[in-house]
């Protein structure tokens, strides 16, 4: 019972905060709300017996990636300068087209939920199968990560290296300007 209540609280916070993220004019508020949403999601991960993913969510996502976003927003110092002007002039912000975009997203949600209703045993309790101690332990996660997924893990390190070089190259000022 308590667990069900927690589930609804966490998912409610995640959904409301995410909806507010795209409703904010000021990117700074968007980022803060997204951190709240990620915190609620990490609560859901704990309920799903994945405490390591929950901690990685808080540390990597809310801690590192969102700080990167915050840093860029502060660096550019352009919180909402365009919003008012573009609201008036840009065709995509006119009510009719904006409604069309919202309609498309609503259609997507209906389609996804419709597909989910038809999934087999979607109504089975999520924690019914498997050994909780084995699933939630970092030891078993690490063992699978470094055996079955070793190649993907090593490929990830190359991805990170390429992303780092790319970010430095893209953001560096061209010499002589």
């Amino acid at each position, binding site marked *: 019972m308590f667990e069900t209540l927690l589930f609804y609280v966490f998912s409610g916070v995640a*959904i409301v905060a*995410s909806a507010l993220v795209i409703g904010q004019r000021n990117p700074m508020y968007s980022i803060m709300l997204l951190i709240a949403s990620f915190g609620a999601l990490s609560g859901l991960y704990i309920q799903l017996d994945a405490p390591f993913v929950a901690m990685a969510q808080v540390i990597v996502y809310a801690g590192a990636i969102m700080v990167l976003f915050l840093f860029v927003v502060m660096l550019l110092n352009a919180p909402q300068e365009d919003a008012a002007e573009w609201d008036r002039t840009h065709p995509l912000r006119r009510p009719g087209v904006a409604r069309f975009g919202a309609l498309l997203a609503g259609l*997507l949600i209906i389609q996804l939920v419709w597909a989910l209703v038809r999934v087999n045993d*979607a109504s089975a309790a999520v924690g019914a199968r498997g050994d909780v101690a084995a699933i939630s332990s970092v030891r078993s*996660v690490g063992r699978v990560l470094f055996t079955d997924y070793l190649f993907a893990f090593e490929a990830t390190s190359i991805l990170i290296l390429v992303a780092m070089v790319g970010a430095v190259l893209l953001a560096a000022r061209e010499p002589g300007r």
Partner: protein
Amino acid sequence: MIPLGHYLIVSAILFAIGTAGVFLRRNLITILLSIEIMLNAVNLSFVAFGRAQGNVDGQIITFFVMTVAAAEAAVGLAIVIGLFRHRESLNPDAFTSLKW
């Protein structure tokens, strides 16, 4: 216990919110944030499916998604900084030089 379908529906709603953000917002930073929302929605369904199957593979895919999200955020924000230097704007419609 909570059914698997509930987690999947939360994930679907989050994904649709992210999609709506990409469609509706005209600010590069907010569009990147919406992409992060979509990645997180998919992470949630990976972990929920993994838990329902009773193995750790869902969690491991989630780590890879997080890594890709970090790389994407770093490169995407570098591009945003570069674009802002050229046009002094974060509106994607300000960058139409390549448009025919």
